[in-house]
């Protein structure tokens, strides 16, 4: 009896397991994401200017003192726009992933715990959705509901859901068959308690590691949709939209595309580095 209770306690303690120290790359990633968070929440701290303020007389200035990233075709300061572009990109990334996870939780748990018929139905549905590339699925949603930031967020969220759902399903199934769940059942715990205290945390924690990776992916996808003219409308300071506007001047003014592109790459890279580190530390 004490052994079983001990096992239960041990499971809960594993989350806090020490693991290795963070490396330099991880610290840089954390620092960058911290900066990104500041840019998203309080952009005026980093760039006090107006991202939409035009000055045609100052158009196409190369990076220089006063305009560290240069100016764009309407004389807007690119540094200010990149900083202010963090919020939409990050919000889209996080919100889309949240939508994806929420939907995936419902589908995954239903498939894993709902019995054979539900499992069969949900699994086939997921397979059908898997047959479409994620971005295509997102485009489909946008075609039906029209372009815009909100639709593209939902579209990216929906497109990522099948992947998460499948992971949650298999994770839940293996957790549900594990000895400690069996122990909890033997101990006579209620179904809700078993679900909330034993199955859910252990099935979902690994998914949160994937989420960190997913946010980076969602940022890239959101930028891709804006690049296609399906996300943020002009002249919004959004990285994908900035890339789109700047690409016409790729040959003559590289800085119009380089800096927003760099922001996208670094955000995706930072979340990936962090996600990998979390993956290595996750309880087995």
């Amino acid at each position, binding site marked *: 009896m004490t052994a079983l209770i001990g096992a239960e306690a041990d499971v809960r303690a594993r989350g806090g397991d020490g693991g290795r120290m963070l490396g330099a790359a991880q610290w840089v990633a954390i620092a960058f994401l911290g900066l990104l968070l500041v840019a998203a929440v309080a952009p005026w701290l980093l760039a006090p200017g107006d991202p939409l303020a035009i000055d045609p007389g100052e158009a196409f200035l190369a990076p220089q003192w006063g305009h560290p990233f240069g100016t764009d*075709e*309407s004389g807007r300061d690119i540094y200010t726009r990149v900083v202010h572009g963090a919020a939409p990109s990050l919000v889209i990334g996080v919100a889309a992933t949240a939508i994806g996870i929420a939907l995936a939780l419902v589908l995954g748990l239903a498939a894993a715990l709902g019995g054979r018929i539900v499992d069969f139905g949900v699994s086939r549905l997921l397979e059908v959705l898997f047959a479409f590339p994620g971005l295509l699925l997102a485009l489909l949603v946008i075609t039906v509901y029209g372009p815009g930031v909100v639709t593209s967020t939902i579209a990216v969220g929906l497109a990522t859901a099948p992947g998460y759902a499948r992971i949650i399903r298999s994770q839940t199934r293996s957790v549900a068959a594990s000895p400690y769940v069996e122990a909890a059942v033997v101990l006579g715990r209620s179904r809700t308690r078993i679900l909330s205290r034993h199955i859910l945390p252990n099935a979902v924690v690994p998914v949160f590691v994937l989420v960190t990776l997913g946010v980076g992916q969602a940022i890239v996808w959101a930028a891709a949709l804006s690049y296609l003219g399906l996300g943020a409308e002009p002249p919004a300071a959004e990285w994908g939209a900035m890339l789109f506007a700047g690409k016409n001047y790729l040959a003559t003014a590289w800085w119009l595309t380089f800096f927003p592109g760099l922001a996208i790459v670094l955000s995706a890279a930072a979340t990936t580095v962090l996600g990998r580190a979390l993956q290595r530390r996750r309880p087995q």
Partner: protein
Amino acid sequence: MHRRPAALLALTAASALVLAGCSAAEPAETPSTPVAGGTLTYATGFGEPTCLDPHVGGNMPQALVGTNVLESLFSQDEEGEIVPWLATGATVSDDGLTVDVALRDDVTFTDGTPFDAAAVVANVEHMKDPETASSTAILALGKVAEVTAVDATTARFTLSEPDSALQESLAQTWLAMESPAGLARGMDENCAGPIGTGPFVFTEWVQQDHVTLTRNEDWNSAPEGAAHEGAAYLDEIVWRFIPDSATRFAALQSGEVDVIDEMQPDNVVAVQEAAATGGDFDVLVGALPGASIRLELNSGYAPFDDERVRKAFIHAADVNPGIESLFFGTVDRSYSVLSSSTPFGASFESEYTIDSDLANELLDEAGWTERDAEGYRVKDGKRLTVDFPISTNQSIPAEVSLFEQIQATTKAVGFDVQLHPLDLSSWYGALAEWDFGVTSAIYTKNSPDVLRILYHSDNIQPAPSGYHPNHSHVSIPELDAALTEAGQTSDPAERAALYEQAQKILAEGAYVLPLYDHLSKIGYSTDVQGLSLLPTLQIPYFGDAWVQE
């Protein structure tokens, strides 16, 4: 009957004499011997037509690809004077209500049907048939009551009122002559490949990819100013659709295509600079006739149904600095609704001053006195929002950037301009429903009569295609009268006075904000020789072109 075409015929004779050494059609290249054969690839940014027959609807994409297949009764020379093409001349009656058009008797359509007066009658009937869903042609033929064949080589146009622009209208590709047998096949088949008399024949249309034009071996109807008679040099032209201007330019540079249109201003400048020192590419630039590129303010609906609000917008929309920086000196600011290549344009620069104090005053007067948290003006709880649909097929990226600047400068006085980049059909849709506050439009027509098409109150009603050219929803009896009268008289001084009066009404009523000429910017590899712009619509003409190995 007085005979007008005398001068015209003399001109033809004179130009025939110099035709051998004619250079009107040639770019400034070292003369070399034409080589027959080869394929030329053209990439257009104007979008893909939904129907290749320019009688149906009638827009630039159709005219561009159609001009090298379908020929017109008249053409224009470099000075804009009407010259004969498939016609040999025209005789106008004294009352101006009967126009006899004499036709060539030696021209045959590429399906073997002879070109004669019966063919002209069939074409005009086709254009005027509501089933054809024409807009450009039917509007241009508004005063033509009937066309009859007097004999095989004379077509008689009977008019309901005199039309000083008839021959100019007939010179446009949208009113080109097609084989009556081809027209009889029905709309679907004719749309897929209309049959003309030109240097090339439509042989293939792979939708969303390309159209193939193949040489017409029997071609004998080169237009005025052509460098040679007889079949064209090129075996075929592959007409591709590349909507993205950066991709299009990259395709030209990599040699994937030989000729592109709708070049970006920065690319034009770069290519011109390189060409001066012997680069591999060059540019042909011409100002398209008709209206200048301009913003049309929808005066039929709120908020621009109030003249004060329109004036406030025009006095706040500071475009000059943007035109300078975005267009790299390739265009000049225009204060005229007419293109610089169209006669009778009048500038009213003083109506377009930038004055934000005046704009603020006008908006206060109009009752837009409050401002919300974001600085936009509000009246009765409604924000001063102006929807601005942009056709991304018609507006190059530099122009879209200019519209963003207009959005920013008008925001200062409290306008909330909402930009909506749309594809061509969604844009037509927004216009048809009057679902816009302001939009940018182009209208190519080789005559000042374009003003009647754009601003006569009749054209608030949609044409059979669903398109209503009077986007500004202008309805002023004096304006209608001036435009109608100007279209009827052939006295130049009287026309000038009437057109000036019309443009003055438009400028003072703040219906339109002229921006600049619509330029035809054709980039080409210097391996392509003999390329020119046909003066009528400034469209690339390939009858004399060849590709150097």
